[in-house]
């Protein structure tokens, strides 16, 4: 009983111990809030990326790949619900008679793309694309202003007065002041084969008319891609080869079987495009694999922040070590009298250990409690700071979000509490052991 009693009395009468408690609480709070924010952000980014991707994408197909053959081969895959061919090219767009687009807005760089005129050109078959991806929803998204919407979503890429149609990301349309009906010119290049068999690059300019805007949740995709009818690209770039295909977008029935399905699809594609040399050609990637570098970069940032915050926790632990060590030094007299009254070295040790663990426990509970509340009400906190000080800690438009994302992982809370308790235990044990090693007679002699 005396251990707990003395530990509490020591803590209550020595406010300096609050420093260690505050340090632990602060580091735990930061670990909870920042990691919850990043976990929420990662979950949101994954959702956004997934929304702009097919479940499985077959890409890197060789030049001789034929859509008809691949479609027939893939039709036997049991987990495949829909597939759509794509031609993937690239080019510069400009609006004839208008000044070039303004420079990028501050903060809207790589994540969004969308501010430079170099884009990927996706040649699609609108109806098949709508079955295999979220294309149908992208062109009817309620966030698209009525004046920018596609007038006839059922025939989104139908030519207008003989001019091929194009769909642009809604942010690009807004930023550049484009409207449906405006004309654009896509400038690109293609390798042409001369009669003597030599190949040389040639400029190709394709006039396009804007059919409207599309919007996925992934701003980076919207900013960097435009859609045209697959037939336009086949005609302009592939000399009318209507069976050419560069990429296949595939929707699956059961997402839990995604990886296995992608493996099977890869084998089917390899067999379908193999010309007898056993060289595997074409890759089948799940939406996560296709965006792995981007998703991993966000994950990497979270891991780095965890390390930084754990270092802060260790720093707080050193603060606690210092205050506990000071306390032990000042309490040598008490160690003597406790021994005289019937305390054992282990018992005296546990008084100081109890002090350290009490500080840690309160710090951890405070940190987790306040941290969880902060994480839950992070959007409200952001708005309050914005209202009171004009400081926007998390500019939502940069990340294409409508509120600060947050995901509190109970396992992470347990891990943080475990780390804090482990650290607190170590820095409590050291001064406690020092107390146990004091010779009680030295203090009792009063010298």
């Amino acid at each position, binding site marked *: 009983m005396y251990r707990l009693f003395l530990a509490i*009395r020591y803590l209550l*009468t020595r406010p300096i111990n609050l420093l260690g408690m505050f340090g632990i609480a602060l580091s735990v709070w930061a670990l909870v809030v920042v990691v919850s924010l990043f976990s929420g952000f990662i979950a949101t980014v994954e959702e956004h990326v997934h929304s702009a991707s097919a479940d499985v994408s077959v890409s890197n197909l060789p030049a001789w790949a034929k859509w008809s053959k691949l479609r027939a081969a893939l039709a036997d895959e049991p987990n495949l619900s829909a597939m759509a061919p794509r031609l993937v090219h690239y080019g510069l767009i400009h609006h004839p008679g208008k000044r070039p687009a303004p420079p990028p807005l501050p903060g809207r760089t790589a994540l969004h793309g969308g501010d430079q005129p170099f884009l990927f050109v996706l040649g699609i078959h609108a109806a098949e694309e709508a079955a295999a991806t979220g294309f149908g929803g992208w062109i009817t998204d309620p966030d698209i202003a009525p004046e920018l919407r596609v007038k006839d979503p059922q025939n989104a890429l139908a030519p207008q007065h003989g001019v091929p149609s194009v769909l642009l990301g809604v942010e690009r349309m807004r930023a550049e002041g484009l409207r449906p009906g405006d004309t654009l010119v896509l400038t690109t290049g293609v390798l042409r084969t001369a009669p003597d068999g030599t190949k040389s690059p040639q400029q190709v300019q394709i006039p396009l008319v804007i059919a409207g805007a599309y919007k996925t949740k992934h701003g980076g995709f919207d900013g960097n891609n435009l859609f045209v009818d697959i037939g336009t690209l086949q005609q302009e770039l592939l000399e009318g080869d209507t069976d050419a295909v560069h990429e296949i977008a595939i929707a699956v029935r059961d997402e839990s079987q995604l990886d296995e399905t992608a493996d099977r699809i890869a084998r089917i594609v390899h067999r379908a495009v193999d010309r007898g040399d056993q060289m595997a050609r074409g890759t089948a990637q799940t939406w996560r694999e296709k965006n792995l570098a981007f998703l991993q970069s966000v994950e990497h940032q979270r891991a780095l922040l965890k390390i930084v915050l754990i270092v802060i926790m260790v720093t707080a632990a050193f603060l606690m070590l210092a205050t506990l060590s000071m306390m032990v030094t000042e309490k040598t007299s*008490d160690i003597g009298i406790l021994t*005289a009254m019937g305390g054992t070295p282990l018992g005296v040790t546990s008084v100081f250990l109890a002090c350290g663990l009490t500080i840690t426990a309160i710090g951890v509970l405070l940190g987790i409690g306040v941290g969880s509340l902060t994480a839950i009400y992070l959007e409200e906190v952001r708005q309050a700071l914005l209202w009171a000080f004009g400081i926007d800690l998390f500019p939502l438009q940069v990340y294409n979000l409508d509120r600060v994302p947050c995901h509190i992982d109970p396992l992470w809370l347990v891990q943080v509490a475990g780390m804090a308790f482990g650290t607190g235990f170590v820095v409590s044990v050291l001064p406690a052991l020092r107390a146990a090693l004091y010779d009680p007679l030295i203090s009792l002699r009063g010298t």
Partner: protein
Amino acid sequence: MTPPVLAASGITKNYRLGKQSIPVLRGVDLAVQQGEILALLGASGAGKSTLLHVLGLLDQPTTGEILFDGEPVQNLPVRERARLRHSHTGFVFQFYHLIPELTALQNVMLAGMMTKSVLQYWAIRKQARREATEILEQVGLADRLKHRPSELSGGERQRVAIARALLARPRVILADEPTGNLDSTTADGVVDLMFRIQKERNLAFVLVTHDEDLAQRADRIVRMKDGVVLSSAAVR
């Protein structure tokens, strides 16, 4: 014949100073009977305090035996010796050694908590508080219960220390220069109090002092010099 409540037989104690061994006690024999006041008298460095610490199981003798009720106890495990210190022996020191964060009442109550678990103490908390209050009233500190040591005079602090030593109802009180830090008037009051309680409770009382007048108030004086008992004589 009843064995002495506390006895020392052939006690030696050497301290190491680097490679040197410094003898502090050189074969001390001593016996304290129940109800006896024994004064250990000697100059500084005679080995009185060391003998007191060895008798109170705070320190281990190099050789020799310590006997409680005739049973050797010096080689008991640490936990057992701690239990004996708590239940058989009460200590009073020259510098009081009260815990500054606690009130007078809490300092005394702390002695009752030493061998109890939280649940055990919780069950007897009211009784423990009552007993601590009664002992403090006995030593004349009824109006100082909630004062901290820094708010008490030297004499009052020593009375709290005496009350603390008495709480566990020990059979032996070991007092190391209990008046060494007090003025003569206060010291007289404290000694009167200690001896009155000793008589009331029939305690064995070992008093370390270098004050000849104080020693004369004991039942027996054991004179020490250079770690050796020179004489042991009853006071008339």
